[in-house]
């Protein structure tokens, strides 16, 4: 009898508690949702993005917030898995009542999130999702969705152009993950541009994300050794393939996309390799140098592109909220679309009709002596 009474009291309390926490919260905050891969195969991407957004939010709060309200970050972990990304987005929108989302990092997660955000009229901006499908689906623009980075067609062609014109490479092989929109897109655009410029793609092979043994594919590549092996995947996969490629006697150049930008990249195996990226910390512009200095002071390392674009995306969003003067997402979306020449670390940003920044430069970096060195910047 007694246990039943205790149980029923517990039950009643547990029903009241969530109600209590639903009460008015002072009304003094604007919640900014952030979705990023905090764990899993690309966790350094998530950590950097979060740091970048946090820096922007801290700076705006130090200036008194927006419209007298302070900004608060609500973090969701997508584990770089589209299903988890959907869960995180639904939780942020339905449970935390977030009206603005920054994220996610990889395109395969941002694409499902963008559908949910657009349907719920939540303004979303991704820092680093480069696949065209993030903002557009079947030729139709998702009006509430933006990004702060360039898209994959120019990124893939930039590396192809660099390989053909600067490195004078005529033969390349390409590996890509069949189940990853970002990797697949980059591989396609690289191949198209490389072949159009007169180069030959000797081997163009797919793998799946759980594959570990590349000996068969690499033996195929080595039957007619190319000068370049293009692997536009994330760093952990690049580590896996690069080491096996060296083991199989591949002496040429390894190359890839912005997924290489991580402190966990195996610099020994990728030494001498090139990758396309969103910015270079060596850029002398004051925006870049101030940012690098501030980030170093807080986190003790040079910001990678993920941190930089997290920071840029947050600034773009917060600027649009401020310009709109309200948290009404329809008005914020219009203010964002109207952004003209907004100065960010990775360049001056205006949006085209697809929600993509126009005129973004593409930096080409080289792994040299275990460090990233800026080689050149390509204007698309």
């Amino acid at each position, binding site marked *: 009898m007694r246990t039943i009474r205790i149980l029923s009291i517990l039950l009643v309390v547990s029903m009241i508690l969530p109600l209590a926490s639903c009460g008015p919260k002072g009304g003094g905050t604007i919640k900014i949702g952030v979705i990023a891969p905090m*764990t*899993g*195969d*690309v*966790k350094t991407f998530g950590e950097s993005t979060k740091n970048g957004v946090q820096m922007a939010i801290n700076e705006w709060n130090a200036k008194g917030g927006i419209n007298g309200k302070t900004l608060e970050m609500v973090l969701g972990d997508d*584990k770089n898995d589209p299903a988890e990304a959907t869960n995180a987005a639904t939780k942020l929108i339905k449970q935390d009542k977030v009206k603005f989302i920054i994220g996610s990092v990889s395109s395969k997660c941002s694409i499902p999130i963008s559908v949910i955000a657009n349907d719920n009229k939540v303004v979303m901006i991704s820092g680093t999702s480069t696949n065209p499908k993030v903002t557009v689906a079947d030729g139709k623009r998702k009006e509430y969705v933006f990004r702060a980075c360039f898209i994959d067609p120019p990124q893939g062609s930039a590396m192809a152009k660099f390989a053909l014109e600067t490195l004078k490479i005529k033969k390349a092989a390409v590996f890509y993950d*069949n189940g990853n929109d970002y990797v697949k897109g980059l591989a396609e655009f690289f191949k198209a541009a490389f072949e159009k410029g007169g180069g030959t793609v000797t081997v163009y*092979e*797919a*793998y*799946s994300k*759980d594959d*570990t*043994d590349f*000996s*068969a*594919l690499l*033996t*195929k590549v*080595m*039957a007619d050794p190319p000068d370049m092996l293009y692997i536009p995947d994330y760093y*952990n*996969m690049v*580590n*896996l393939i690069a*080491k*096996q490629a*060296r*083991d*199989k*006697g591949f002496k040429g150049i390894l190359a890839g996309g912005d997924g290489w930008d991580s402190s*966990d990249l*195996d610099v020994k195996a990728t030494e001498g390799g090139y990758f396309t990226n969103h910015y270079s910390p060596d850029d002398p512009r004051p925006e870049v140098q101030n940012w690098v200095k501030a980030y170093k002071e807080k986190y003790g390392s040079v910001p990678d592109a993920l941190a930089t674009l997290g920071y840029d995306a947050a600034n773009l969003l917060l600027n649009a909220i401020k310009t709109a003067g309200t948290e009404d997402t329809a008005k914020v979306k219009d203010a964002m679309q109207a952004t003209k020449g907004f100065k960010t670390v990775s360049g001056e940003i205006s949006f085209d009709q697809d929600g993509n920044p126009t005129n973004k430069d593409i930096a080409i970096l080289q792994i040299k002596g275990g460090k990233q060195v800026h080689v050149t910047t390509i204007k698309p």
Partner: protein
Amino acid sequence: MSYVLQQLLNGIALGFVYALIALGYTMVYGIVRLINFAHGDVFMVGAFIGYFTLRALSKVTLTGIAWLDGLLLFLLAMLAAMVVCTALNVAIERIAYKPLRNAPRIAALITAIGVSLFLEYFSSLKFVFGPNYITYPTPLPMVNWEIGGLRISILQVLIAVVATLLLLALNYIVHYTKMGKAMRATAFDRDTARLMGIDVDLTISFTFGLGAALAGAGGVLYATAYPRIHTFMGIIPGLKAFTAAVLGGIGSLPGAFVGALIMGVAEVIAKSIYSTIADGVAFLVLIIVLLVKPAGLFGRAEVEKV
């Protein structure tokens, strides 16, 4: 021609690693008629123990000669993995499987799946191994030789040598020691073995431990060859090794070894022709063999004991 030989060589190297896992499946099945689905996860634990050992010893110099140090570190990591995996598998047997020894087989099978999921999810907690992908450190220098148009890397040699030595040791234990005799007797007829004065519990524990030691060594070898580890890495190699054991005739040691080599070669050949159908082909080989020879290549058709 050398292209085909090179691909065969790749397949055999992969097959050796599968063999180390497959033997554990087949031994355990032979003795307690249980498919130990947690075996692939013991393999994963082995890879992680190797990683922690390598990381802890990364600053230590033993002899001052770089390549010899690397080799010794690698062997130490493997030894640590073997010891820990043995202890782990013996504990799993004592806690999870022993109470169910006389229960219906399906109960033990479901428990094995439960243990497997437990190992995967428990070890992916932040304070255990963590949920992240880790790039495996390689203590060995990257060296490869070209012999008659074939390219052989130091890793392939190492995998072949270490796996062969372990398999010879296993063969010796099973066929030429008292414990091996007890294992074979228990596998043949547990009750009679007990009547003959064999400590059946000890023998079963020993079998689990032996299988786990091979899986642990396999984990370190696999992670060194394919340097990316995470807590779900054991699922696919585990499934493939299990398939190899069934292909060779589950319960048969030579069968598991040959089955693993066939799986490795089939996978690599398929991959070299069309990369995304590799796994499909490996399992297709299994289906064909089972249709033609239901007990597997080396298995004996067995009458269900009542």
